[in-house]
C-alpha cells in the first residue's frame, strides 16, 4: 500500500511527516525501536530536503507499507546541482537509521529514499 503526503517546504511540517511515518510504521508491525528510527530518519531526510528547497517548493513524502518494513521517499524541487552529499554527519545519521538509503537528483528534483525494516539490528 502506498500513502503520500504533500507538505510545504517548512521545517515545522516535519512533525506531520514524523507522525505519518510512525503511524504507518505501526501498520507495518515494526517494533518500537524501528518505529523510532523511522521517525528520526524521516525527520532528518525532511529537514535536509527542506534546507535545499526553493521557498515555494512542495515536499512530497511517499510511504510504502509492507509487513516488517517501511519505505519512504522524500522529494522536492531543489537548489542543489547534485544529490544530497553523503560525506556529511546528516548522511551518517540517516545511514545508521535506515537499512537502505539512496539519494538522487533528476532534472532538479531531489529524492531521498530510505527503508527501515525489522530484524537486521534485532539479531544482535
Amino acid at each position: 500500500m502506498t500513502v503520500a503526503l504533500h507538505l510545504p517546504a517548512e521545517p515545522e511540517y516535519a512533525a506531520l511527516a514524523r507522525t505519518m511515518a510512525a503511524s504507518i510504521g505501526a501498520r507495518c508491525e515494526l517494533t518500537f525501536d524501528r518505529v523510532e528510527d523511522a521517525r528520526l530518519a524521516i525527520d532528518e531526510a525532511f529537514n535536509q530536503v527542506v534546507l535545499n528547497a526553493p521557498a515555494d517548493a512542495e515536499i512530497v513524502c511517499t510511504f510504502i507499507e509492507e509487513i516488517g518494513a517501511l519505505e519512504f521517499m522524500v522529494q522536492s524541487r531543489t537548489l542543489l546541482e547534485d544529490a544530497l552529499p553523503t560525506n556529511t554527519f546528516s548522511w551518517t545519521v540517516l545511514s545508521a537509521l535506515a537499512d537502505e538509503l539512496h539519494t538522487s537528483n533528476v532534472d532538479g528534483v531531489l529524492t531521498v529514499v530510505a527503508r527501515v525494516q525489522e530484524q537486521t539490528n534485532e539479531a544482535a
Partner: protein
Amino acid sequence: MSAQKRDLEIAEHIGLVHHVARHYRSHAEFEDLIQVGMEGLIFAVDHFDSELGNEFSTYAVPCIRGAIQHHLRDRTSSIRIPGRLQELALKVSRAVDELTQIHSRSPTIATIAAHLDISVENVLAALEVNHTRSMMSTDDERIRIAESSLDDSNLEDFENRESVLQALRALPKLEQKVVLLRFYENLTQTQIANELNISQMQVSRILARTLITLRSTLTSL
C-alpha cells in the same frame, strides 16, 4: 514526624499553594502550577523548623513560589503538552521497558497498545509527545556516565569533520555517548538503554533533541 502528621500538615496548608499559584495563572496551566507548588509545600513541611519561632507560612510561601518560578524558568519552550498526554507518554514509556524485559526484544506498537489496553493511535500520540518533549526540560536526564569515547571513535572523513567533532564535544556527556553508540557503533535504542541504564524513551528523546541541536549547529557554520 509521622507520615500521618506529615500528610495532615500538607493538607492543612494546600490553601497556600492555591494562593501563590493564582499569581502565575497567566503563565501556565493552573493545575500544573498547583502540582509544582505542592512540591514546594512538601519541601517546606519536611524542612520547617518551628524552633526558630517563625510562622509556617512565612517559610512555606517562598518555598512554593520558588518551586513555581523554577518550573516556569525551566520551560525552555512554549510548547504546552496537556497533562493527560504526559501521563500517557509516561505509561507508554514504562510499558516499553517492561515488555522489552519480558520478551528480550523491542515490542511492536500493537503489543504496547494491547498491553496498556489503549488504541494504537494513543501509543503513537505518546511517541510524538516524547519527541516534542525532547525540546524541553532535560532535568531528569542529567545522568552522570562514564567518560565518553569521542576521542577514539572512528568518525569518518566528513568534509567538515572538525566542525562535527566540535559540535559533538559541545554536547553533554550523556548526549555524546548516545549519539556515538547509535550512529557510529550502530547499537539499537534498546541496546543503548541497557548499556547506559536509562529507559528507551529517554534514549529516543535524547536522540531527537541532539539531532536538532547538531543540525542547527552544523548548518549555521
